[in-house]
C-alpha cells in the first residue's frame, strides 16, 4: 500500500489551529535555527486523507475483536470496551503527572487501591505500579533482589538461575542487571530438575527466576522444594507472572516461596496489547524487598490523604513518571468488574479451554510433555509434520489462511518445532472447535497436499514475506524525494 508520504501535496493540512493572539517575540539566533533545505519532510494531507490512509492500513491487521489469538504465554483475551471509555474520561486522561497531590487525589486513591488488590491476588505486601511492561517488571524484581543482598553485605551475589524453558526476557533482564545467567535443566516431565538446581545454587546465587506455570503450561508441582533450595542457599525467588492467568483465585506466588513477582496487566488483566504495547508490569513483593521499591510508591497518611512517596531504600526509578496510569485505570476496572469469583472463574475457564484443545489436538500432533493435565496453555511439537517436509512455520502461516492467528512458534526452545497454544477464557466452544478443525485440516493437508501448507499464506493481504531480504537490503525509513532535505 502507498505510504502516507505518497499522498502528500503542498498546501494540504489535516488540522486547524487557532491564530496566534500574542505579539511576535524576538526570534531565535540564526545559528540555533533549523536548517531549512526542503523542510522537515512531514506529510501534507487533509484530515480525510489521513483518516482514509490509516483506516486502510487497519484493514490489513488481524486483531482479537476479529478472531482468536491462541498465542502461548501472551494471554490474548478480550479487551472490554467500557474500559477504553473510562481511561479516556475527563479528569483521568488529562492530568499532569506533576500536578500538586491534593489536585489528583482520585487517581492516587485508585493507584493505591489497585496496589492493594494486586497484593491480595499475589499474596504479597509491597507493590510498585511503575514498570512499563513485563520486562521492566523483571528488571525491577532483580534490582530489588540485588538491593536486598547489598543491604546484607552480600553484593557478590550475582548469579541468576533459570530453567532452559525461560522467556528470553529473563536472561536479557539478568544481563541488564549486571548478573550472570546460570541455566537449570528441565527433567523428562518438563519441570525444573531439583537435583540440578541443588547443584547450581551456591554462595553467589542472587535469584532463581521461574515462570509458574512454566512455559510448557505445566505447574511446577515440587515448587516448595525448589524455592526452599534457593532460600537455603541464601538466594531469593522471582516469579515471572506472564502465566498468572492460570492462577487467579486458585493459588498465589506469595504462598509458594516466591519473594517477588511481576504481573502483565496487558495479559492477565485484559488491557489491550495495542499491536505491541503499551503494557504495564507491576511488581509485587514481600516485606523483605518492599523497602527497596523504586520511586514513587503511593501511600496514604492518617488523614486519608494519598501521597507519592519514596521507599526507605529505593533502588531508583524506572520511568520519568509514575507508571502507565492509562493502563492501570483499565486493569482496575477489570478487577472490579470481575470480583474474586469472576477472576477465579476466568482462570478455571482458561484451564478447561486449554485442556480441551490439548485433548482434541493430541491425536494429530506430537505432545512431548503430556503427563497429565496442563494449566492454561500447552505445547505441541510439529516434529511429525517436519518429517514430511512441512515446518511448524508453514503450519503457522497456513492457519492465517484459515482466518485464525497462529500460536506462538519455536518457543519454548526445549521443544522441537514448538507450537505453544493458549486459548484464554474469553473464547467460546465454537471458536475453540473452529481452531481445532483448522489444525486437523492442516494436519491432513500435510499428508495429502503439503504444498498448500508450504506455500501459505495465500489469503492474506500479502504473501509470505522475505525476512532475509529485509536484513540484507536494510530499508528502515522512506527515502526522501528528489530535492528534499538529505540530512
Amino acid at each position, binding site marked *: 500500500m502507498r505510504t502516507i508520504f505518497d499522498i502528500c501535496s503542498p498546501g494540504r493540512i489535516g488540522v486547524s489551529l487557532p491564530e496566534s493572539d500574542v505579539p511576535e517575540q524576538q526570534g531565535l539566533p540564526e545559528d540555533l535555527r533549523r536548517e531549512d533545505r526542503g523542510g522537515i519532510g512531514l506529510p501534507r494531507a487533509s484530515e480525510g486523507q489521513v483518516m482514509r490512509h490509516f483506516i486502510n492500513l487497519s484493514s490489513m491487521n488481524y486483531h482479537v475483536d476479529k478472531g482468536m489469538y491462541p498465542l502461548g504465554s501472551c494471554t490474548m483475551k478480550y479487551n472490554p470496551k467500557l474500559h477504553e471509555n473510562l481511561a479516556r474520561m475527563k479528569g483521568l486522561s488529562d492530568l499532569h503527572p506533576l500536578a500538586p497531590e491534593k489536585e489528583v487525589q482520585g487517581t492516587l486513591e485508585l493507584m493505591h487501591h489497585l496496589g492493594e488488590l494486586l497484593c491480595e491476588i499475589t499474596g504479597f505486601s509491597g507493590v510498585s505500579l511503575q514498570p512499563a511492561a513485563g520486562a521492566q517488571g523483571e528488571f525491577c524484581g532483580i534490582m530489588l533482589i540485588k538491593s536486598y543482598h547489598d543491604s546484607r553485605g552480600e553484593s557478590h551475589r550475582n548469579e541468576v538461575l533459570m530453567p532452559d524453558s525461560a522467556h528470553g526476557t529473563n536472561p536479557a533482564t539478568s544481563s541488564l542487571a549486571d548478573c550472570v545467567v546460570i541455566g537449570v535443566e528441565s527433567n523428562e516431565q518438563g519441570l525444573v530438575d531439583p537435583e540440578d538446581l541443588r547443584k547450581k545454587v551456591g554462595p553467589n546465587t542472587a535469584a532463581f527466576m521461574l515462570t509458574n506455570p512454566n512455559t510448557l503450561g505445566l505447574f511446577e508441582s515440587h515448587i516448595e522444594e525448589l524455592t526452599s533450595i534457593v532460600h537455603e542457599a541464601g538466594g531469593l525467588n522471582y516469579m515471572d507472572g506472564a502465566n498468572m492467568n492460570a492462577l487467579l483465585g486458585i493459588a498465589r506466588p506469595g504462598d509458594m516461596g516466591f519473594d517477588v513477582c511481576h504481573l502483565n496487566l496487558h495479559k492477565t488483566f485484559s488491557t489491550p496489547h495495542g499491536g505491541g504495547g503499551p503494557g504495564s508490569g507491576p511488581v509485587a513483593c514481600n516485606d523483605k524487598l518492599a523497602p527497596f521499591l523504586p520511586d514513587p510508591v503511593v501511600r496514604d497518611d492518617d488523614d486519608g490523604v494519598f501521597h507519592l512517596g519514596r521507599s526507605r531504600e529505593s533502588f531508583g526509578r524506572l520511568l520519568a*513518571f509514575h507508571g502507565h496510569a492509562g493502563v492501570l485505570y483499565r486493569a482496575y476496572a477489570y478487577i472490579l468488574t470481575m470480583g474474586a469469583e469472576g477472576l477465579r472463574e476466568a482462570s478455571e475457564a482458561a484451564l478447561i479451554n486449554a485442556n480441551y484443545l490439548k485433548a482434541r489436538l493430541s491425536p494429530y500432533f506430537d505432545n512431548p510433555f503430556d503427563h497429565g493435565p496442563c494449566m492454561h496453555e500447552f505445547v505441541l511439537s510439529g516434529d511429525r509434520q517436519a518429517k514430511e517436509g512441512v515446518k511448524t512455520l508453514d503450519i503457522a502461516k497456513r492457519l492465517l489462511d484459515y482466518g485464525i492467528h497462529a500460536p506462538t512458534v519455536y518457543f519454548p526452545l526445549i521443544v522441537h518445532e514448538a507450537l505453544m497454544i493458549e486459548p484464554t477464557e474469553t473464547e467460546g466452544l465454537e471458536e475453540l472447535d473452529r481452531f481445532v478443525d483448522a489444525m486437523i485440516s492442516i494436519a491432513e493437508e500435510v499428508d495429502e497436499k503439503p504444498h498448500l501448507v508450504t506455500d501459505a499464506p495465500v489469503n492474506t493481504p500479502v504473501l509470505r514475506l*522475505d525476512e532475509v531480504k529485509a536484513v540484507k537490503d536494510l530499508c528502515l525509513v522512506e527515502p526522501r524525494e528528489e530535492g528534499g532535505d538529505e540530512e
Partner: protein
Amino acid sequence: MNRFIPDSRANREEMLRTIGVDGFEDLLEPVPEKFRLEGPLELPGPVSELELVRNFEELACRNPASSKPCFIGAGAYDHFIPAAVDHILLRSEFYTAYTPYQAEVSQGTLQAIFEYQTMIARLTGMEMANASMYDGASAAAEACLMAMRVTRRQKVLVAGSINPRWLDVVRTYVRRKDFQLNEIPFLEDGTLDISAAREMAGDDTAAVLVQYPSYFGLIEDLEPLAELAHGNKALLVVAADPVALPLLRSPGDAGADIVVGEGQSMGIPLSFGGPYAGFMAAGKKLARKMPGRIIGRTEDRAGQTGYVMTLQTREQHIRREKATSNICSNQALMALASTVYLSLMGEEGFREVSSQCYHRSHYLEKGLAGIPGVSRVFDKTPFFREFTLSFPVGATEFTSKMLEHGILAGLPLPELGEGVMLITATEKRDRSQLDSYITAASEICGGGAS
C-alpha cells in the same frame, strides 16, 4: 454469568468429559493441595457497567487539576490533540492486535510504525529510528548502554542540566559495577561548562548525554559538545524535545550519534504520566547495536512491498542474555498516535505548534519578569516553551496561591533557589490565560496588576 466468559457451566461439563476428567478439581492435580486457596480472594466487586462508570466518575471528580489551565511541563506537556487521532486509536484493528510477529496479517501496524520511524528520523535529522521505547527517560538510559556497547567504554558524561527524573532512570539502568557517570556542571547562564567537560572526557568516555533544550528550557549549540565527544571517540547522545525540532537546528545536523526523546507531546494525552512513548534514532551503521523492535521494508513471494520486524537477532527472544536490551513490549499504540498526529499536523501545522509554543512562552516570561521582585534565573540564554523565574515568595507558597486562582502554575525548583519555578506555556494557553497568570502572579508578589 460473566459477560467476558462465553462458556456456561453446561458447556464446561461437556468439555471436561472430552478432556476425560470428572470435574474441574482434577485439572488442579499438579497444584499441591497446601497451596490451593480454600476461600475466595478478598476483593471488591463484581460491579456492573453502570456502577463502574459511577465509581470512575466519582474518582475523576476528585482530580480537580483536570479543569485548571496547566503551566506545568518538566517532561510532560499539555498540547492540543486533533480528534482524529483517538478515532484511529479506537480502531479494534490497531488496539486489540498483538505484536506483529505474523507479518502477513499485521501489515497495518507494521507499515504505520515504518512511517513513524521515518517521521522520527526526519525530525531528528538521523538516518533511522526504532519502533519506540517505554518513555524518553528509559530511551536515554538505553542510549547510554548502547554507547557503552558501541565504544566498549564505561564512562558517560551527563549534562547537569538534564531532567533530574531522567537522570535517576539513567543511574538506575546503568548501576553496574564498572560503570561511571559524571555530571557536567552548568554555568551561570545555564549553558554547559564545556571546558570542565573537556577535563572530564578521556579515552574511557563512551558518551556525552545532553538534553536539548535543557530541563530549564534553555537552548545551546550542540556543536561544541559533538566536537568534544568525537574528539574522544565517544558518542554524542541528544535527548531532544520533538516540538522544538521544527525550529531548532536538528541534532543530526549538529553531529549527534544517537537522538532520543519523549514523544508524549506528539498526540499522546497527559494521562498522569503514561503510557507515553520514547523514541530513539541513530545513524544506519548503529542499527545493529540498537535496542528494541525495528521495522524494515521487504517483499513478499510475489514481489509486492511489505513490512516485517527486522534485525531480530539483536532481541531478547533470539539472543537471550546477549541481547541489546531486555525490552519486549514497547509503546506501539502510542507511536501510532504520534504517527497520526504528525500526519494531521503535517509540515506546516507542526511548525505552527512549535512557533506558538515559542511565542506564547516568551510572552508569559516577559510579562512575569516585569513584575517587581521577579527575576530571571538564566538571563540572556534563549529558551523554548519552558523557562525558570525566581519569585519573591517561596515557590511552594506561590504554587498554592496560584491554585487559589485556579491555575497550575508550574513546578517549584528548590535546587535553583527558594522562589524558583519552572513554567511552561504550550499552544493551548491562550492570551487570556497568559494574562490571568501574570495578573495573579503580580498580586501574589505584592504588586497589583503590572
